[in-house]
């Protein structure tokens, strides 16, 4: 009996028992869909992690004010001067980027834009997490040294495919609307009451393609940190404060040592007060990934359980099929079928049922993944590869055939005389 005929016979048997077959392959298809989703998520997470770590650099950390810390009055807080000191004392640091930001009012050509997120930063900003395309130029060392009133504005990111929730949550504020319509490169804008010249325009990648972990926190405009402090600071002792200092050692191996050195330098400069904390962003991302891996494992377990349940369903169906066809088995034996022919027949039917369930599951899974991706918020979902799809279908048929093994083997061992008497 050749393969094509055997397959055709299998199809005939399966379609002759539609309800029974549908029942058993539903569970298989749910299992397969679940596995596929999990695979897509694992793949997506892996890609996201790799892209992130690459962008972020191997030795990234962020120095921030310690939350809820009450100063003893000794420390001046985290300042631009701290950043300058770090760069001076640890010259091999690849990046030292102090940053402050306020939500400010911007005036341009009679327009008044409220709530524009303006950040003071340094040229080091460019060294990591740089995903923008730049028109004009970015801030340079001269700007920072001379407190130049120059600004680099950020275009709204936009979407390749806007997810439905963005209609409700993705607030397009005054600035975004303005920046999308008006090209201000080379123009002057007034920020609060200081005039800045726009020397560059940054365009971030569309939101759904942005590889950054924290793409939502991109400011609307960058100015030199020194100019920022001079023009928007309060003019008192706190004027030199910064929100955070982003540091990159340039090498994962030096991360721990540099971290200890930075701690010592800042502690000394803050007169013993530990009013700052150093966050290892890689650690943060990796721990988040670890959390997600747990969910993925749960998804994997769910898929396997569903697949096993489907397998048991198929075992049941095979048993029922065999019970209903004992006489047929006797007849087949009498006209020349060997035990192996009977075994192969029922295993093949089960495998086909499993494969059908698997294909349905792939359809379900692909549809589901596409739908979830369309909803947005699941940018870590990779599209399942053809290999994944084939793999899960093969797995579904193998599991089904595996579960059918015992009933099919029993069928093959039936005494043909007894089998012929059945019914």
């Amino acid at each position: 009996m050749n393969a094509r005929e055997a397959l055709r016979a299998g199809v005939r048997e399966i379609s002759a028992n539609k309800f029974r077959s549908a029942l058993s392959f539903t569970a298989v298809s749910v299992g397969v869909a679940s596995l596929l989703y999990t695979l897509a998520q694992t793949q997506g997470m892996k890609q996201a992690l790799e892209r992130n770590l690459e962008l972020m650099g191997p030795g990234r950390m962020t120095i921030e004010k310690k939350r809820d810390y009450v100063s003893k009055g000794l420390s001046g807080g985290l300042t631009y001067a701290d950043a300058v000191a770090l760069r001076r004392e640890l010259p091999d640091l690849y990046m030292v980027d102090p940053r402050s930001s306020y939500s400010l009012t911007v005036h341009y050509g009679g327009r008044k834009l409220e709530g524009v997120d303006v950040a003071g930063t340094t040229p080091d900003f460019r060294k990591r997490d740089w995903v923008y395309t730049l028109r004009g130029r970015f801030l340079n060392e001269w700007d920072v040294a001379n407190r130049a009133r120059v600004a680099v504005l950020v275009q709204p990111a936009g979407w390749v495919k806007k997810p439905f929730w963005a209609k409700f949550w993705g607030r397009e504020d005054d600035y975004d609307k303005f920046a999308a319509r008006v090209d201000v490169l080379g123009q002057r804008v007034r920020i609060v009451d200081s005039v800045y010249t726009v020397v560059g325009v940054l365009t971030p990648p569309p939101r759904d393609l942005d590889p950054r972990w924290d793409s939502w926190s991109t400011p609307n405009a960058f100015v030199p940190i020194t100019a920022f402090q001079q023009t928007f600071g309060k003019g008192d002792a706190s004027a030199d404060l910064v929100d955070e200092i982003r540091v990159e050692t340039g090498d994962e191996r030096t991360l721990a040592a540099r971290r200890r050195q930075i701690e010592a330098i800042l502690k000394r400069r803050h007169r013993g007060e530990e009013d700052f904390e150093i966050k290892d962003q890689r650690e943060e991302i990796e721990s988040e990934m670890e959390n997600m891996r747990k969910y993925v494992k749960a998804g994997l377990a769910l898929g396997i359980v569903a697949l096993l349940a489907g397998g048991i369903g198929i075992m049941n169906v095979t048993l029922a099929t065999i019970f209903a066809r004992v006489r047929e088995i006797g007849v087949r034996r009498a006209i020349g079928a060997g035990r192996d022919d009977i075994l192969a027949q029922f295993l093949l039917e089960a495998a086909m049922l499993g494969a059908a369930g698997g294909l349905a599951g792939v359809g379900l899974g692909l549809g589901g993944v596409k739908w979830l991706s369309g909803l947005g918020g699941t940018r870590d979902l990779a599209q399942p590869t053809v290999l994944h799809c084939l793999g899960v279908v093969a797995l579904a048929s193998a599991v089904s055939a595996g579960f059918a093994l015992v009933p099919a083997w029993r069928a093959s061992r039936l005494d043909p005389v007894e089998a012929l008497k059945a019914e």
Partner: protein
Amino acid sequence: MSAPAAITVENLARTYQGGYQALKGVTFSVAAGEFAAIMGPSGCGKSTLLNILGLLDRPTGGTYRLEGALTAGLGDAELTALRRARIGFVFQAFNLLPRLSALENVALPMAYAGAAVAPRLERARALLDRVGLGRKGEHTPLQLSGGERQRVGIARALANKPALLLADEPTGNLDSTSSAEILALFKELNAEGTTIVLVTHDPAIGASAQRVLRVKDGLLA
């Protein structure tokens, strides 16, 4: 006799688990080309005898030689191969597979024998022609009358050119007209050289057989 007898049984016995003796020692032989009928009351062991002759069952005592070769000690796979190649079965209840067409039913034993599709279907068509159903190859068993189904059954039994055709009350489920047709077919096949052993209650068939083996209480009468 130059050719060995198609069937030689000596002291053949079959005792079921629990001690029931269906056959208590039967000795006879059927020559190649013979047409033999096994007759006897219900429960006398006719079917058990036929199953043993068809290699579906094994005797618990005595010997069975098929075409001179001893069948004792053969494994299931060897018995299956022998049955497939040398024996054709015809059943009282026809036992066609309901989801296959007449043609596919006839071709099935050849499929198990490993024949390629094209020659298999060609021979199946020829066989259906031979039993007078050349035009009904695509019909399923449910679309055929009882007599037609049995013709398909006979065609299927002939698929692998068996030396021995075994039939278990082949006319038991048929009306007298169909029975007569089936009997005529058996006679023709026998005339062409096929050895036929059939179990029957039908005196008309018994009368057409060259030899009648009467079984009673597990023994030849």
